[in-house]
């Protein structure tokens, strides 16, 4: 690793100020960034750790029935504290990485990184969540802008993510066996006014909504409703040694059916 200064502010204001310096970069749980630094794929002069900011940690239900999760909340905490209100999200968090990784990695860090195979983007897009930052609120539909690309600007920090709590939801992950990232992951959420289906791991464009499945499930929320659909177009899906684009497209359909069948 190249060396850098590491600062650990205790408030968002201090963190934003520290990020104002050239080549400063925020550090959340570090479970992606630290391996990246070890590979010398990043060379920040200063890392601004967000782990000391108490204000952006925790899970609570809002008055309008949403689940608000602080950007600095670890996957392990989400797995425990979201279980009662939003089991679909809690189970997703409980299967990210391994227990030690879940005790460091954060929801804000995952969403800011927007790895094309990460799990949280599927939940955020699949629920139409709102990503709150120190500057503004961003709808999930506007937030994800392709592989590793988001609407975040320099020195913008995710302070909270608000999830509209679905009537039923489920996330199914088809794991890439070595990394346990999603080879394909599908989040299905049923609301009174319709169903949302978001797919991670599959597309070269990052997380996306499978609109055909959303329409079919909105009129008939059953695994059989997916049977008559053709799998989404595999030509723009990730093709690598773990699976071709067409294979991933097929798995999207299978995971969607499983998620609907398991939704609670």
């Amino acid at each position: 690793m190249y060396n850098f200064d590491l600062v650990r502010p205790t408030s968002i204001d201090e963190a934003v100020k520290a990020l104002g310096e050239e080549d400063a970069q925020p550090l959340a749980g570090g479970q992606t960034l630290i391996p990246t630094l070890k590979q010398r794929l990043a060379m920040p002069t200063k890392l601004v750790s967000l782990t000391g900011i108490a204000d952006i940690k925790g899970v609570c239900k809002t008055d309008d029935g949403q689940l608000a999760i602080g950007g600095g909340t670890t996957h392990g905490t989400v797995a425990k504290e979201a279980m009662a209100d939003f089991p679909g999200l809690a189970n997703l968090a409980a299967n990210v990485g391994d227990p030690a990784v879940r005790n460091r990695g954060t929801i804000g860090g995952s969403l800011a990184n927007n790895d094309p195979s990460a799990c949280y983007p599927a939940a955020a897009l699949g629920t139409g969540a709102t990503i709150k930052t120190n500057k503004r609120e961003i709808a999930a539909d506007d937030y994800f802008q392709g592989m590793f690309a988001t609407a975040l600007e320099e020195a913008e920090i995710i302070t909270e993510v608000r999830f509209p709590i679905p009537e039923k939801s489920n996330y199914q992950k088809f794991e890439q066996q070595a990394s346990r990232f999603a080879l394909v992951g599908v989040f299905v959420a049923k609301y009174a006014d319709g169903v949302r289906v978001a797919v991670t791991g599959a597309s070269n464009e990052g997380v996306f909504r499978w609109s055909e499945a959303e329409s079919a499930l909105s009129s008939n929320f059953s695994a059989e409703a997916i049977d008559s659909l053709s799998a989404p177009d595999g030509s723009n899906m990730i093709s690598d040694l773990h699976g071709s684009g067409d294979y991933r497209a097929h798995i999207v359909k299978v995971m969607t059916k499983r998620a609907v069948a398991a939704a609670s």
Partner: protein
Amino acid sequence: MTKVSMTVNGKSVSGEVEGRTLLVNFLRNDLRLTGTHVGCDTSQCGACVVHVNGEAVKACTMFAAEADGAEVSTIEGAANPDGSLNAIQQAFQDHHGLQCGFCTPGMVMSAAALLKENPKPSEHEIRSYLQGNICRCTGYHNIIKAIMAASGQDVEQIAAE
């Protein structure tokens, strides 16, 4: 260089670290607590698992400066106060839960974290919890047995796969 202070195995310690100093390197190189191992250095193998504020973390994927003010426990602090092996360590010995021993510190620290939140885990729960701890010798079977035994459960029911 920045000054960091933390409590390691109940003792207050401090030292000067660079921004890039990993917690595992601070423990091993500065404090000479070499029981915590570096296996893969890519947060996959779990040989470096320690507890920070009671939670299992991979010490190769956390900076020492982020543990400033924290309570850290390592394998050196695992034994009973009289120096005898704790229940998990003794069970690893009794059930031959190690061969070369390189992964063992991480296995024992992960097992301790598991038993703290789930005192009677099933075989499946143990296997699932150890996803982030890799052993290249044992095939895991005796490790699972040891953790079942350490939690006071019958190990005979676990058949070799």
